[in-house]
């Protein structure tokens, strides 16, 4: 029983049943008393009417007429009344069903008739002006029977409601438990460490299935975040070792090497450079985590991707030209998207950094922004050495660098950050063959022209002119 009491499902179901039963009880009692009151009222009125009729006979012809009327009435086959008339001294002049001499007014009596069991009756007694007492009684047996039947029916109904309610409560409670238990057992399994557990979802699509689906989606997301975290920790553990080792090497070299100011300064400068490299790596990891957490979505605004690309091309143009490479920036008028300016800037700079870092002089780098039916399309392509087909999926993973010696600058997080930024913008990223070279194609959801958002207004060319 305490177990039942602790179950919200049972409490709910039993509570509901109790409320229903109470309502039935109150209604039943109301019906019972109202019906009784009406019946008794009618019953009393018929006695009163009979008494009034007899009194009229008496007033017209005195006791003899009254006696006649009583005899006449008593003879009527459908007459349900019993009469008694007592004279001034209390002696019975007429007496049916052993009615006794009583004080005037209403009262209850037993009606005894020959050969029949005694019955419950009700009477009205009146003192006549000449001192006689007239008693008119009626058999209340039918009324009693009706009342008993009504009472019985109501009691049976109440008991049935209680029984059905209790049974329903138990079934309802059991059903709730059956639906909820998988959820709590899944949760318990997850608490115990098995993150792969999922709530089994039925096919009915009811509230429980929907809750189960939401829970599963939530669990998927959590599992993904946990996996990210786990991977970051292990990546950090592995990939921070190399730059930390270099840092340590620089410090150790300085301590053990020639103790001249010049070489000590060199060692310190090396150590500073290496620590900056560690910090840059650290920053990049934190940045990826920040992007993957999705917090940036709160800052999303309408941005013209074409203008952004043009700005960044202007920023990188001189550097790319100085490296004897060619930069072609090709973009249509306005390509509105919804995003975070700083992240999108970082995405493009990372791609251009890569194009500068991993190609030889003479390479052409193309940045193109176009509106396509599928969304805003950004392409950064180069005519450099490219990426072998087998590695194209791999290079967007964390810390993946294709030069095994790790001699070029960079920490192997650039493309991973690009992928994270694309994904937080609900976009798609593809690494393709530019034959020759590598082509990064990014598709971002466009803001539709018909969207009359005020933010988009700002992006229209005439408005830009106004702002400028």
């Amino acid at each position, binding site marked *: 029983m305490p177990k039942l009491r602790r179950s919200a499902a049972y409490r709910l179901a039993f509570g509901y049943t109790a409320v229903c039963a109470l309502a039935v009880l109150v209604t039943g009692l109301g019906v019972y008393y109202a019906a009784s009151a009406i019946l008794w009222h009618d019953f009393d009125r018929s006695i009163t009417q009979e008494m009034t009729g007899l009194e009229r006979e008496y007033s017209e012809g005195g006791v003899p007429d009254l006696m006649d009327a009583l005899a006449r009435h008593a003879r009527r086959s459908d007459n349900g009344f019993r009469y008694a008339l007592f004279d001034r001294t209390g002696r019975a002049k007429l007496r049916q069903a052993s009615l006794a001499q009583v004080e005037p007014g209403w009262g209850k009596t037993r009606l005894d008739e020959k050969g029949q069991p005694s019955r419950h009756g009700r009477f009205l007694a009146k003192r006549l002006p000449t001192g006689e007492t007239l008693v008119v009684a009626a058999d209340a047996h039918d009324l009693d029977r009706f009342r008993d039947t009504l009472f019985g029916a109501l009691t049976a109904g109440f008991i049935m409601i209680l029984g059905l309610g209790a049974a329903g409560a138990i079934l309802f409670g059991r059903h709730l438990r059956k639906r909820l238990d998988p959820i709590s057992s899944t949760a318990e399994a997850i608490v115990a460490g098995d993150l792969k557990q999922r709530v089994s979802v039925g096919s009915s699509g009811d509230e429980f299935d929907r809750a189960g689906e939401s829970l599963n989606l939530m669990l998927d997301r959590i599992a993904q975040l946990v996996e990210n975290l786990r991977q970051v920790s292990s990546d950090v553990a592995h990939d921070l070792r190399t730059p930390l080792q270099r840092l340590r090497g620089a410090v150790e070299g300085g301590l053990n090497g020639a103790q001249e100011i010049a070489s000590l300064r060199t060692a310190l400068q090396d150590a500073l450079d290496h620590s900056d490299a560690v*910090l*840059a790596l650290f*920053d990049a990891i*934190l*940045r990826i985590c*920040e992007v993957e957490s999705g*917090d*940036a979505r*709160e*800052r999303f605004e309408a941005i013209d991707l074409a203008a952004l690309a043009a*700005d960044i091309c*202007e*920023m*990188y143009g*001189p*550097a790319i030209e*100085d490296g004897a490479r060619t930069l072609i920036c090709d973009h249509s008028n306005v390509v509105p998207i919804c995003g*975070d*300016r*700083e*992240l999108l*800037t*970082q995405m493009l*700079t*990372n791609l*251009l*950094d890569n194009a*500068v*870092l991993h190609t030889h002089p003479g390479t052409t780098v193309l940045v193109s922004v176009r509106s396509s039916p599928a969304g805003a399309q950004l392409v950064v392509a180069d005519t450099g050495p490219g990426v072998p087909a087998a590695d194209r999926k791999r290079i967007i993973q964390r810390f993946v660098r294709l030069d095994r010696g790790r001699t070029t*600058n*960079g920490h192997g997080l*650039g493309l991973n950050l690009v992928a994270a930024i694309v994904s937080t913008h609900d976009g798609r990223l593809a690494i393709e063959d530019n034959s020759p070279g590598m082509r990064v194609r990014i598709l971002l959801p466009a803001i539709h022209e018909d969207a009359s958002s005020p933010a988009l207004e700002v992006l229209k060319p005439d408005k830009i002119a106004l702002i400028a």
Partner: protein
Amino acid sequence: MRILLVEDDVQTALLLEEGLAPSHRVMHVETGAEAIHAGHSLTFDIAILDRMLPDMDGLAVLHDWRAADIRMPVLVLTALGTVADRVSGLEGGADDYLVKPFAMDELLARIGALKRRSLRDAPPTHYRVGDISLDLLLRRVRRGDCDVHLQPREFDLLVQLMRNAGEPVTRKMFLATVWGIHFDPTTNIVDIHISRLRSKLRQRGSDAIETLQGVGYRLRRDA
């Protein structure tokens, strides 16, 4: 300069005091409550404010100061480095936001720039350093009697240098003010744009821009 340093980590505070001491007077407090009190009772030229203080968020200190109309420039120096953190810091009334770990030269250059900015009531529209003059409204640069034709970003770089003439401007400051980005691209964007600016200025006179190794650039006052 009188600097209020709000930093609860003693070792960081010592390093900062050491770095700032040669040219500035530093008062160091460790808690938000002390910082609020100091801000109300004394006058400082600048405040360096940590965010994760033992008793409150540094931004609460900043909020209190700004509410009390204490308008000294505030540089938030913190380990909270996400974009959201920086945005909330700047929206909370900070004049600059520098994420730990930082280079001492970076900090010195930034508080110098902040101080100079706060001294001016309204930002001027004309600058003149040596024989270089710059008109922000016409976006025109002249050296001696000749026009110097600059690309828009080169012009913006020169504005930063002229605003801080004789003082260092770091690469990060250029990136933030000229391009609005708060991360370091691998490609040395700043150096290449500066080198173009430098050679354009040189066509009309001596080399006006000094390179500060590992720090940034400085415009010579006697250019």
